[in-house]
């Protein structure tokens, strides 16, 4: 039989992969030099923009989800335990939002790279090739709908990144960061693969839709014998054996490494600091977005039936992540390290809404038990309310992620600019930036205030409001309080840094290198996006409100 492939559906990763190959070829055949470096950057940029064009075209065409790499009809009944369609690659709103986010961030990162590479010392062809490979993985991951594809896509995101980190050759920090990232990445992959194998062993399928059916008790689990054969001590929800819980925890842990949440966060600061700044930006936005996409897919699409198991874990992890990230960020003196810990803390905020999906479901299922259930609907609407709660939670997470990406990239882009003039890039180097480079200072101040969630950085405020609302509605009051306290801790260091920008300082010694216009364009794109989200957060909220994939 022949697998039918809908090439329009996979156009986005295809374009990126082709351009990646093209870049490598061009690098091999063109003479090395500054012009070639710029040319390769422009080719990569064009590739990302074309891919973005495909995303926009797919979004404009609308008409629901389109899938490819499906199990053919003839095999569907024989192979799968459920009657659900089983496809590996699906393009729906969820996919498109993540792909759009990743590609716009990709444009910014490519622009930052052009500035980074202009100094020489880093091979341009390899750099752009690896960067585009990462992007391929990052746009494939949110479209993946089976476990194998998820793991492969995630590895495609991760593997090039530590090569990128190490490309700053003859730099001790950079090599250390690369080794650290490599070890973390490999360990997390191993852990996740083990978890995946357990889940596959129980359910007998790798397709997320069929996993969902098995783990919510709608379909029999082929890997499980009669209930008497396993101990009743560790029974997961829906009468499944405890090994399901183990598999779930291992998969979550694997993703937790990738998105650097507590207790798997320790690598973040060293790696961010050691890596070239565009790579740090990539790690904090693209890699993180991909990790969250995978986590959301696994938890919400494949394991909604086990929400009672994973949502408390996520809640505790979210609370710990934001607290630890913020506390560590307070003590930092280096700009990149501060941003690293702040991005860990922000991961906590992104995770938080996911933690209440089960609570919303539970509240809908048993309105009599919850305090003040006056707002909860009648029992008849319980199921619908639960589904709406899950959709809302995912929407809140994705909305926060999108807004976070814009503001964090803005901050990184300005830090990139600064790194051209100061070697150490410490917070003290930012003293008086407002007088030396007012535009950069105002851009950075705006992004930091957005990250802090203060007006006039309304984007960050509304992102936090969306998350707060979700948590409060979900009934996880304690998490809301933890988040509130953390927001204040976060304010301290963001505002502290912002204030430094405006405090007068001694004149900087001469020998200032001018940054290339590319970095300014990167700053511009990120800040304009953050401004746009501030004035009209509806753009993001409207996009993400329906983004919960079924």
């Amino acid at each position, binding site marked *: 039989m022949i697998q039918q492939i809908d090439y329009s559906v996979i156009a986005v990763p295809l374009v990126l992969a082709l351009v990646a190959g093209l870049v490598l070829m061009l690098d091999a055949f063109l003479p090395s030099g500054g012009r070639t470096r710029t040319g390769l950057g422009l080719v990569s940029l064009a590739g990302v923009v074309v891919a973005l064009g495909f995303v926009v075209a797919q979004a404009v065409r609308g008409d629901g989800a389109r899938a490819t790499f499906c199990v053919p009809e003839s095999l569907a009944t024989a192979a799968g335990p459920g009657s659900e369609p089983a496809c590996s690659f699906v393009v729906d709103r969820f996919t498109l939002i993540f792909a759009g986010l990743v590609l716009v961030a990709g444009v910014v990162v490519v622009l930052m790279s052009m500035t980074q590479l202009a100094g020489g010392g880093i091979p341009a062809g390899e750099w752009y090739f690896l960067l585009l490979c990462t992007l391929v993985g990052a746009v494939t991951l949110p479209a993946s709908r089976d476990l194998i594809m998820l793991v492969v896509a995630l590895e495609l995101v991760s593997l090039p990144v530590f090569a990128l980190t190490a490309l700053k050759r003859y730099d001790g920090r950079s090599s250390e960061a690369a080794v650290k990232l490599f070890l973390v990445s490999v360990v997390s992959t191993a852990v996740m693969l083990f978890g995946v194998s357990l889940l596959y062993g129980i359910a007998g399928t790798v397709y997320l839709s069929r996993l969902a059916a098995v783990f919510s008790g709608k379909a029999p689990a082929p890997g499980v014998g009669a209930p008497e054969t396993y101990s009743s001590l560790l029974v997961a929800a829906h009468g499944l054996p405890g090994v399901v819980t183990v598999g779930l925890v291992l998969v979550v842990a694997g993703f937790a490494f990738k998105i650097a949440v507590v207790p798997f966060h320790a690598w973040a600061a060293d790696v961010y600091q050691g890596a070239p700044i565009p790579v740090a930006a990539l790690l904090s936005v693209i890699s993180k977005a991909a990790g969250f996409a995978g986590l959301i897919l696994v938890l919400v699409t494949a394991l909604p039936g086990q929400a009672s198991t994973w949502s408390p874990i996520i809640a505790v992890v979210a609370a710990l992540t934001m607290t630890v990230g913020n506390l560590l960020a307070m003590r930092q003196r280096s700009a990149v390290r501060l941003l690293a810990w702040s991005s860990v803390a922000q991961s906590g905020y992104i995770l938080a809404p996911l933690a209440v999906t089960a609570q919303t479901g539970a509240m809908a299922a048993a309105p009599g038990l919850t305090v003040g259930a006056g707002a909860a609907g009648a029992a008849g609407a319980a199921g619908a309310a639960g589904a709406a709660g899950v959709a809302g939670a995912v929407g809140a997470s994705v909305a926060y992620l999108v807004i976070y990406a814009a503001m964090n990239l803005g901050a990184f882009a300005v830090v990139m600019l600064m790194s051209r003039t100061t070697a150490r890039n410490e917070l003290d180097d930012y003293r008086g930036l407002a007088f030396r480079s007012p535009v950069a200072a105002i851009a950075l101040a705006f992004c930091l205030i957005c990250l802090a969630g203060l007006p006039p950085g309304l984007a960050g405020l509304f992102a936090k409001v969306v998350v707060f609302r979700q948590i409060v509605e979900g009934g996880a009051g304690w998490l809301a*309080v933890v988040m*509130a306290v953390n927001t204040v801790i976060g304010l301290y260091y963001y505002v502290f840094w912002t204030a430094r920008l405006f405090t007068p300082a001694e004149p900087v010694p001469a020998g200032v290198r001018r940054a290339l216009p590319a970095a300014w364009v990167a700053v511009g794109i990120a800040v304009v996006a953050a401004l746009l989200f501030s004035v009209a957060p509806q753009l993001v909220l409207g996009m993400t409100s329906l983004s919960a994939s079924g």
Partner: protein
Amino acid sequence: MTGWLPVALLAVPLLGALLLLVSPTVLRPWLRVYGLVVSGVALVLAVVMVATFDYGQAARPQFAIDREWIPGLGIHFHLAVDGISLPLIALTALLTFLCFVYLSWGDARGPGQLLRPRAGGARPRALVFTLLVLEVGMIGTFLALDLLLFFVFFEIVLIPMYFLIAIWGGKGRRGASIKFILYTLLGSVVMLLGLLLVWARTGTLDIVALGQAHGAGMPRAVQILAFVAIGVGLAVKTPMWPLHTWLPDAHTEAPTVGSVLLAGVLLKMGTYGFARIAIPVLPEGAAAVAPWLGAFAVVGIVYGALACLAQRDLKRMIAYSSVGHMGFVLLGFATLTTVGVNGALFANVAHGLITGLLFFLAGAIKERYGTADMRALGGGMLATLPHLGSVLTFAAIASLGVPGLAGFWGEMLSLFGAFQPAAGLPRGLFLTFMVIGGLGAVLTAAYFLVMLSRVTHGRPERAQAIPAVARSGASGVGGWPSDGSASPDSERSGWAGESPDSERAAWPGESPDSEQAAWAGEPPDSERVTGTIEGGAGGRVLRDIQGYEFAAWVPLIVLILLFGLWPKLLLSLTTPAVQTLLGALS
């Protein structure tokens, strides 16, 4: 129809600030006039609003504009004005304008001229920008009728105020500004949680609809929780007694205009929130928490007064006096009666005027003497700087609540409200509050009189020669013995001899206009050499009130007198609105 007015009130300062950002070089020579003009336009708009407001329907939100802003969150851009917010908007526009007057009109050598370029970088453009953004936030807070919009404006204020303290502040500005922003942010976040709780339970953010619902759909427990959360956020800003500790530092370190706006407007945002959101939206929660609120308020009154007695720094003392006065405001709210809430709102506006004036004066003194330490100032200001001393005396007695001046009515009505609190509140407890509050009022009088005896009266110890005293004393405010040779005792006895009524009678006669006229007669640059000082000021020549200072202060003096003599002006405006918002309780 008339919805453009509130939008314009926000747009004018906002566009003014943005213009400053866009074209920094073009406006540089016009900077001092620029801020004055922009805030003047805002003031004119506020005056138009006051003039066209339909006083027959003061309870109804007027000049309303209601547009959907963020449909995904249900946030509306809903602005309107009613009897409660109108005076505060006018006050904000006025105080901002007066701050610009203060900053713009003086000559370069005058005190407090931050808009003048000078060594060390006064950074005038940033100052104008900051003040204009601050004005947007302050006016927006009083206009907003959407919970989250209110919160946004409430927060917008923080950043310019932070920079105002952190950049143009005094020696301890760094610590003070960080304390200020962390404290208020913590409060704001807790308030945001409360607002979201209300939102989650009722499904709407519209303050008008929520107020009309009178807490329907929210069980008592939720209301109490939400009230406490929102109340904590507002109480930090107000500030209420145990949460006030940021205030003295912030006030002491802030530049004069910062202190004036902080005391005159920012504190009002907290109390306004009680009147606008906490009490009408959560009536059951308010009723449950009211005795606690009253208790904290009364503690604040007494604590503020006692703390004032212990202060040596003039600015710090006035800052602590704010804690006491805000205690009266909170006590008025806690009674949940029309009388009490009316009194609270009145005291709110009166405090804005009086304390605004007091901080102007404290700033003027600090910049002249180089210190605001009362002992270092020595006595006899009425002799050395007769005009300044007179205005300080006036402001102090207005603040201590002498009948006939604006400070009196609010506190009286608050205490009167506590005499007969709303049904359901323990009357005995509130009677106790009333008695303690009354004692607090006595203590308030005590510390202001102590301050006056230390600063304005007595023999000018530090002044060596007082050549021009006779001349300036003659043209200055009459009624006080302004001769430096008068002994402290005779002055004080003269003071005690004058009853408050005669005081009041004396003041209108000595109308501020005539003072101003007297001023206008003299060239503004004329140096009023009224005394030289040695020691701290290094023998610098002290100058009495300058023209720009008078221009900034006279409107406040006039309004203090006006509201003191004719309180109905304000009360008739707030009464219908208060009756509406207390609908569920009374």
